């Protein structure tokens, strides 16, 4: 199959995004196939595991709400650990979805069409997962509504100068806009599913499609609205992780109080998110037989982005270190030396080896195009990026200005329970999505398909195209 793929190139030598021998009807039939047949054994195995992990997650949260956050390894001075680490991690995962759907759309990167739907779904589920952490971390989640400014009996408002309040606005806006964007993209595909199905399915997809019929008058509005949402999502995604980084950067703790944080966090978010997209797509294309849509070319492009953002992250690590040493600030210098050589050095070096060293294999085309290599690297990057947030949060907290404050953070079984539980929760939603929603944007792929047909000379060029050529 790989020989077949490399053979398909256009006049400029770029690989075609999709096999030009396909018909429009093939696209609908093949994308809808996983939804229309009963799920296979693999799906059930993954789903059962995810549901079990989610159940233990729910049990852990319930117990923690009853007992208090003390069941975690949190204590003075490490008051933020796996909870906030996981929050930042999951928000970061979400960013790649928006990058693929919005930023690549604005840059006219047509290869995004096969992967944007699943990447956007990943965004939404990742943000849902992330949103749980600040809530349970407050210890009294039944007062979570205090985070929102609302008229109340105490006549009090939230403190708008606090980055934690900015976070509430940023994350909830991000969630809302991501859902709007995703749903807009889904409308024409729900209509396609409606027109293929009968009975109760037709009713459900009919309602979800809102009665979309593909009228040109509607497409005209649709395309412009989609462009506007992409335009809004682009600065939004950059702002969200910048604001998350402000949670740290606006404090005065050495290791947190640094101006490099916003771009460093955004690069890291995109890096980890792309790794998660690669992890998911390698599985998805295999389980649902989407190899002809999510081609090696798509995966290779994503691996290139992993390489680039991985080096940005590596550069940020180096800059942080350099500035800490160069600043002449003894506290700053201590924190960084303590990171690389202190009691949490293991975490620091896991981060460096996973995030900076492992993506370097992608300099070689052979590895960029190897499913096994990219799957392993994507998992390593996910691990590395989780430890990056852990390193930033825990090593900065555990030894601050006064040695009397120093301590070591030891996770309990409940810390591990929330980490694996969050993965179960995320995968449960993603698996349900793969089962009931079209994982590839059919309408957009058809557009790309027609271009591929033209490029491969499968259909005659029109008069205007001949003149243009």
């Amino acid at each position, binding site marked *: 199959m790989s020989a077949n793929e490399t053979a398909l190139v256009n006049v400029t030598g770029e690989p075609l995004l999709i096999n030009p021998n396909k018909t*429009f*009807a093939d696209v*609908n039939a093949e994308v809808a196939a996983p939804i229309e047949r009963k799920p296979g054994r693999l799906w059930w195995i993954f789903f059962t595991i995810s549901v079990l992990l989610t159940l233990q997650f729910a049990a852990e949260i319930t117990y923690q709400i009853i007992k208090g956050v003390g069941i975690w390894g949190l204590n003075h001075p490490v008051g933020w650990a796996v909870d906030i680490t996981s929050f930042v991690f999951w928000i970061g995962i979400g960013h790649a979805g928006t990058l693929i759907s919005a930023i690549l759309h604005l840059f006219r990167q047509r290869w995004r069409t096969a992967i944007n739907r699943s990447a956007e779904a990943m965004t939404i589920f990742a943000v849902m997962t992330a949103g749980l952490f600040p809530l349970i971390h407050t210890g009294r989640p039944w007062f979570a509504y205090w985070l929102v*400014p609302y008229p109340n009996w105490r*006549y*009090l*408002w*939230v*403190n*708008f*100068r606090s*980055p934690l*309040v*900015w976070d509430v*606005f*940023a994350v909830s*806006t991000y969630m*809302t*806009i991501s859902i*709007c964007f995703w749903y807009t993209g889904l*409308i*024409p595909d729900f209509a*396609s599913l409606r*027109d*293929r199905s*009968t009975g*109760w399915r*037709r*009713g459900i997809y*009919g*309602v979800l499609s*809102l*009665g*979309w*019929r*593909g*009228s*040109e*008058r*509607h*497409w*005209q*509005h*649709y395309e*412009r*609205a989609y*462009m506007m*949402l992409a335009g*809004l*999502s682009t*600065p*939004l995604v950059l*702002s969200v992780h910048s604001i998350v980084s402000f949670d740290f950067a606006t404090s005065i703790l050495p290791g947190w109080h640094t101006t490099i944080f916003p771009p460093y966090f955004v690069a890291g978010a995109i890096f980890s998110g792309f790794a998660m997209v690669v992890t998911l797509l390698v599985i998805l294309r295999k389980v649902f037989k989407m190899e002809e849509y999510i081609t090696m070319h798509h995966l290779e492009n994503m691996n290139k982005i992993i390489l680039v953002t991985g080096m940005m992250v590596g550069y940020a690590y180096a800059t942080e270190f350099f500035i800490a040493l160069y600043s002449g600030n003894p506290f700053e210098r201590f924190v960084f030396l303590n990171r690389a050589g202190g009691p949490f050095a293991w975490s620091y070096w896991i981060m460096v080896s996973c995030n900076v060293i492992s993506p370097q294999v992608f300099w070689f085309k052979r590895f960029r195009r190897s499913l096994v290599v990219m799957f392993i690297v994507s998992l390593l990057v996910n691990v590395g990026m989780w430890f990056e947030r852990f390193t930033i949060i825990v090593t900065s907290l555990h030894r601050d200005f006064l040695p009397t404050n120093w301590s070591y953070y030891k996770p309990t079984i409940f810390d591990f329970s929330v980490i694996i539980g969050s993965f179960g929760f995320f995968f449960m939603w993603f698996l349900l999505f793969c089962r009931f929603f079209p994982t590839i944007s*059919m*309408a957009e792929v*058809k*557009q790309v398909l*027609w271009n591929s047909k033209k490029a491969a000379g499968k*259909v005659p060029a*029109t008069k205007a195209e001949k003149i243009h050529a």
Partner: protein
Amino acid sequence: MLELPFLRPKPMRGILALYDNPDEILTAAALVTEHGFRNVDAYTPYPVHGLSEALGIRKSWVPYVTLVMGLTGAALGLTFEIWTSAIDWPINVGGKPMVSLPAFIPITFESGVLIGGTMTLAALLVACGLPNWQAPILDRDLTNDRFGLFIPETGPAWNEDRAIQFLRSTRAVDVRVIRG
């Protein structure tokens, strides 16, 4: 199909021509206005570029909603921050000024995006008259692999034969009379 009242189609009358590729419908669309047909619409599985120009469909007004609502949202966000922090109950937090503009920027921006984005989706739905579960589905393949050109029955000067004749002269794979 579920027999729910809101899913029952509303009648539509006119002539529908089906094409099996986007280039054919573009060629036909370029001729249809020249032949004097009005309010012609196309139904396609994906947006075919050039079709709205050929059919004389005006550019969407949705982006103006995004702009105006985005700016309105940002203005509302900032006003709310200033009102709560400096007017309704001014509290001195860490000696910062009551109107701490730099600290108010993130939420100003987020409110702009939130209102702008949700209103863009709302405007899209209003512009397309969605949800509209009563609109008839002219052909099930129009969301699959067929491209349809629809000439609606208009006014007393309507000449059905002329429309059929014209559409047959294009490279349509099928021409159908739609009644109800």
